[in-house]
């Protein structure tokens, strides 16, 4: 994964394939809670509802959504944990 041609190295990966929302939101919040500020979580989902829920969760928690990739069946999010 790159942003502006700079590679992003995920600190941790959470695979929520097969899980329906809001389960990926719950698990992502738990996973982010265990990371340090500035760490990056790679989150994989297969529920299209995540395309709305994950950005909203990031805003609510004060994390930064670095990128979203959706190929129609799988979504991959890169989330940077905020300072709060």
């Amino acid at each position: 994964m790159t942003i502006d041609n700079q590679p992003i190295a995920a600190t941790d990966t959470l695979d929520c394939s097969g899980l329906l929302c809001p389960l990926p939101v719950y698990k992502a919040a738990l996973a982010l809670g265990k990371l340090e500020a500035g760490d990056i979580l790679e989150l994989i989902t297969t529920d299209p509802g995540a395309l709305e829920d994950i950005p909203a969760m990031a805003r609510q928690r004060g994390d930064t959504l670095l990128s979203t990739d959706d190929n129609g069946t799988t979504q991959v999010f890169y989330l940077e944990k905020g300072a709060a």
Partner: protein
Amino acid sequence: MTSVLNDRVLRSDRSLQRFDDIRDLLPGPDNPTPMVRVSRILPATGLDVFLKLEWLNPFGSIKDRAAAYLLSGLIERGELGDRELVEASSGNTAIALAALAALDGVKLTVTIPDGVPEEKKIQLRMLGAEVWPTPDDLCPVDNPKDGAIALARSLAASDGGNRYVMPNQYENPDNVKAHYETTGPEIWNQTEGNVEYFLAGFGTTGTLTGTGRYLKERNPDVKVIAIEPEKGHRLPGLKSFQEAKQPGILDWDVIDEVIRVDDEPAYAMTKRLYREEGLMVGPSTGAIVHAASLIDAERGVAVGVSPDSGLKYTEFFADVLGDEGTPQI
């Protein structure tokens, strides 16, 4: 199972209150929970108000009834199979379900609102359940204040529904059936058919719908009164349908009146019940008795549900008490 003492087999005997299995203590018309008159706070000069002490059930609350029916219904219909249980609960249903599931060797995961007292979460974990504390606003986009229910539903539906089954006390008719077949007949029998008012809080609404339906079938003039907390309340176990989704099992046809109760009078009444009646009840009972005190009737018999004891709510009571009962120097 039997126990042996002095070479004699001591068999289960209800007349001696001796049982082989804790489940034999589950309530029903042959084993009703006690009713006690609220005789000092609401003297029997007009309306006689009784509380039905559901915290004397084996797993500590009125939810013993629903949990037993929910679990046996799933097993009898072959819907459980070798799957695990997942349920959304503010604690009491989950505690009863966890105890009963453990007795049947079934694993339970509980999604529980964040604000539920720690005591309940620890009791659940003691019973072997897995506990997932859940914020009410878990779903950031579609945001009714029912994050625990949404999470339990998503667990049950994920992975093709192969791992979990959700009894779903909010939608499952077995919840209503439990109260139609037990709580209702018990109250009818214990009041010798004289009950005129029945009071219970909004929650899953199984108690109101099932008990109310039974009592109204026996006497259509029985008034069923629902107690609803205000939005943003701190009355655990109760739900405000101004902010939470109405359960599918709620039958408005059996409800005659809704009385909204603020936190303050509910906690004030809870304190009075402790001190003036010796009734160590949870705050939802305080809300129900406060509502009963507002009934405009010169005479009659009212029965309110006392869903659980105050022992699980020390965190809430500590806030209410402040420094009351500590040395004032």
